[in-house]
């Protein structure tokens, strides 16, 4: 009985170590291939279009409503202390430092990350990845490398878009709906935000790009290792990709914030 428990525990630990090793090799192979000629410009543009351009609407929309909620909540919280004039500052700092990068990464995970995992997962179960190998094409270079570059380009830009629409949302709820002077709102936004806040947000967005893309592509790529096969395996890898990406976004957010503050 005890031996069995220890064996099972040991097997789980070995499995985790194997997974960590596999994901590290996957990540390093993919990133090393960024510098291998020929550059995959067409594929990078294609994926930037999918991850970046096609996410713009949903990012702008969520950014706008996040800003509106922040404006609304912030106004009534600050009102208690008679500091409602600082609403612009509160909205800007919260968005640019924290919510912008984190919410953008979560929204891209939901929209593009899940699609990456599902697409690569289907390629795995339909032997398309094996077909690449038989044609002497590195599947990691072909599937992962262009996506990670596209993500590193897209995430910071989408974060900036989220921030702009968030500030606009805060302006609509704080100034237009609750009556804070629009010049005061804009002035506090501009005066409170430093260049370091903006670059810090972009650092976070870049790290999230790497985290999300690596996890989502990895989950799809190794779909065949799940106990469930076929469509169920793909559904499992997609779910895992989204859940793990979100968890690691929050973990890495804390770590980066710890070093930035």
């Amino acid at each position, binding site marked *: 009985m005890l031996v069995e428990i220890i064996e099972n525990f040991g097997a789980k630990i070995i499995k985790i170590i194997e997974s960590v090793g596999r994901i590290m090799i996957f990540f390093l192979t993919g990133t090393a291939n960024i510098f291998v000629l020929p550059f995959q410009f067409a594929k990078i543009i294609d994926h930037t279009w999918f991850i970046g351009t096609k996410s713009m609407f949903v990012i702008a929309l969520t950014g706008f409503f996040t800003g509106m909620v922040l404006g609304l909540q912030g106004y009534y919280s600050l009102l208690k202390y008679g500091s409602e004039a600082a609403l612009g500052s509160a909205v800007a700092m919260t968005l640019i430092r924290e919510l912008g990068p984190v919410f953008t990464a979560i929204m891209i995970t939901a929209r593009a990350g899940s699609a990456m995992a599902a*697409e690569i997962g*289907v*390629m795995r179960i*339909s*032997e*398309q990845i*094996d*077909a690449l*190998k*038989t*044609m*002497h*094409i590195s599947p990691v270079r*072909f599937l992962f490398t262009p996506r990670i570059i596209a993500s590193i380009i897209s995430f910071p830009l989408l974060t900036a878009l989220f921030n702009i629409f968030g500030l606009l949302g805060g302006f609509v709820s704080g100034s237009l709906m609750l009556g804070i002077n629009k010049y005061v709102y804009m002035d506090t936004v501009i005066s409170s935000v430093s260049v370091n806040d903006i670059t810090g947000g972009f650092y976070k967005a870049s790290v999230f790009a790497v985290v999300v893309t690596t996890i989502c592509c990895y989950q799809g790529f190794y779909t065949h290792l799940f106990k469930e096969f076929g469509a169920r395996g793909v559904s499992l890898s997609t779910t895992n990709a989204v859940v793990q990406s979100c968890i690691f976004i929050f973990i890495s957010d804390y770590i980066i914030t710890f070093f930035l503050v």
Partner: protein
Amino acid sequence: MTNPFIQFTDIKKSFGTNSVLKGVNLSLYRGEIIAIIGKSGTGKSVLLKHIIGLIEQDSGKLLINGTPLKQLSFKDKRNFQKTLSYMFQDNALFDFMNIYDNISLPLVENSNFPKDQIEKRVFTQMKQLGLTGIENKFPAQLSGGMKKRVALARALVTDPQIVLFDEPTAGLDPVRKKNVHLMIQEYQEKFGFTAVIVTHDIPEIFNISQRIALLDEGIIRFEGSKEELFNSQSKILNSFIKGENF
């Protein structure tokens, strides 16, 4: 007969507790069409995947021109693998690419040919296989037979020396099956590649194969010419050919 080009010697392969290949011995010769027959799930595709490098044996040797594959230098191994082409059972065409991109992919990614030369080769291949005019279509828009021909075009566009066919006629009607067989024979005669065909198409496959190998319960039960096959007194072989349980 000349020395074997590829030789399996006592190849064993297991997946977990499931022992699939239990000591396979088989020789493949240059320029021949060899059919590997056997019941479903006996490891025919696994055997084929050893040659292309998708699966590695647990024990035994895979010899290439007499040298174990594992002992070849990285460069020699890569050069050997570049002479191979593989046609998958379910075609494994890329859904997100059109037919032209599917066929040209191995050339685009691996060759130094200029764009116009790649285009010329792809269109020549498409014309030879009766695929003219569908270059902008996607795999999902094609019939089963057309997809097979696209997969064959992709397999042949690099002028391989060995083409491995994993059940090339699976899911096709008898007329299309015959067409695919004839197509393989015609191209094999034309280009002189070695064709290794894993199939269930008995007796049709005997019309185009020079040699036949029967894989049963993880070992090769028979390896020889058509004449030897039909003259064989082996119960297993005769039962299999007649479609009886054995």
